[in-house]
């Protein structure tokens, strides 16, 4: 029953949302991409649509100097914690400067160090490995963060599949490629 499934996706978020390993549980309990089709948070304005723009701030440690600015392992959080992004549609861009300032302050870095990364949600969800859907985007909003979402690796391999980390490493690179970066965007 769809209602039961929807509650189950929400249950995962409710139970493991703050555990530091929510992506592991989504992968364990659902087929890749299944929970993309449901809202997982009661505080969310709704599931993340493919045509939404996602954004995230980046530190110098996430970037290299080439045109593919984001380092392949910069989005490692997709493995367990969940890669935090904001849904532009639900966060006015006029607040971006305030958010950037808060982000920099929390990490003790100058505002000029921050870069801005943006991607279309559909590009993230379209990443595949041998034809299999690789990433999910969940509307992991909280009461005070309604536009928050998480990107998680959704693809799994059967137990005992060799070289899994090799495949995941290439997937991390694929994810980095779909984000557009503006370095030092407030500098």
């Amino acid at each position: 029953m769809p209602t039961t499934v929807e509650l189950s996706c929400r249950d995962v978020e409710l139970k493991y949302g703050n555990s530091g390993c929510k992506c592991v549980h989504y992968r364990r309990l659902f087929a890749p991409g299944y929970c993309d089709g449901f809202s997982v948070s009661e505080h969310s304005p709704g599931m993340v649509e493919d045509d939404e723009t996602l954004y995230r701030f980046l530190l110098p440690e996430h970037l290299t100097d080439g045109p593919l600015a984001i380092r392949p392992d910069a989005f490692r959080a997709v493995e367990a914690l969940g890669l935090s992004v904001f849904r532009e549609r639900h966060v006015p861009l006029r607040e971006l400067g305030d958010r950037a300032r808060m982000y920099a302050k929390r990490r003790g870095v100058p505002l000029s160090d921050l870069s801005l990364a943006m991607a279309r949600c559909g590009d993230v969800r379209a990443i595949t490995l041998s034809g299999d859907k690789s990433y999910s985007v969940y509307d992991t909003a909280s009461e005070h963060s309604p536009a928050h979402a998480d990107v998680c690796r959704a693809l799994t391999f059967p137990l005992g599949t060799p070289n899994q980390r090799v495949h995941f490493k290439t997937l991390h690179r694929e994810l980095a490629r779909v984000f557009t970066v503006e370095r030092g965007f407030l500098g």
Partner: protein
Amino acid sequence: MSDISYSARAAGSPQLSGSLEGSWQEHDAGEIDRVRAKAQLVAERMKSEIEARTRPVQEITHELLARAPRRTESEMRDLLESELSRYPTLQRGWDGEFAKPASPDSLRDARRFLSLRPADVPLPHPELNSDGETGFFWDTGDLFAGVTFEGDGTFYFAVCHYSRGKETARDGAEDCPVGSGWPDALVGPLRKL
């Protein structure tokens, strides 16, 4: 778990609006306005560019990488040393609440691996992930290769070939002893760069 949840708020929520505003305490009004205006301008431009794309983003990235100028060996060496020296200075939480500092064992293995580099293989770009693992990578658009050191004396690596942004072949291995040198499956493609 969000590492940026502190900053989001419901539209019009005076309580959280206060926390966002509070981050500006040490700035004057002119500076606040300048940052807000610039952030909005950049974000709107980026969003417009993304929405205006008529080709897959991977294809665009591939072209940019293929056209990018290469750094000299000397420049790469300086970059590598500068980055590897900086990693141990990063504190727990450097990349969000759960981010680990650089693992000394991983860094040791990375440096040892680098010291065994065949002379005809170009120097890599360094990277550090939020699990504290040091790695290296090369990316020309047509070829991506990445190596990660977990700090137990081994590494894993991946090599991917691309054509017009689409993957055409993948190779790699796990649990490779650092002291055994660079695997042929890694060195072969890199020698052609």
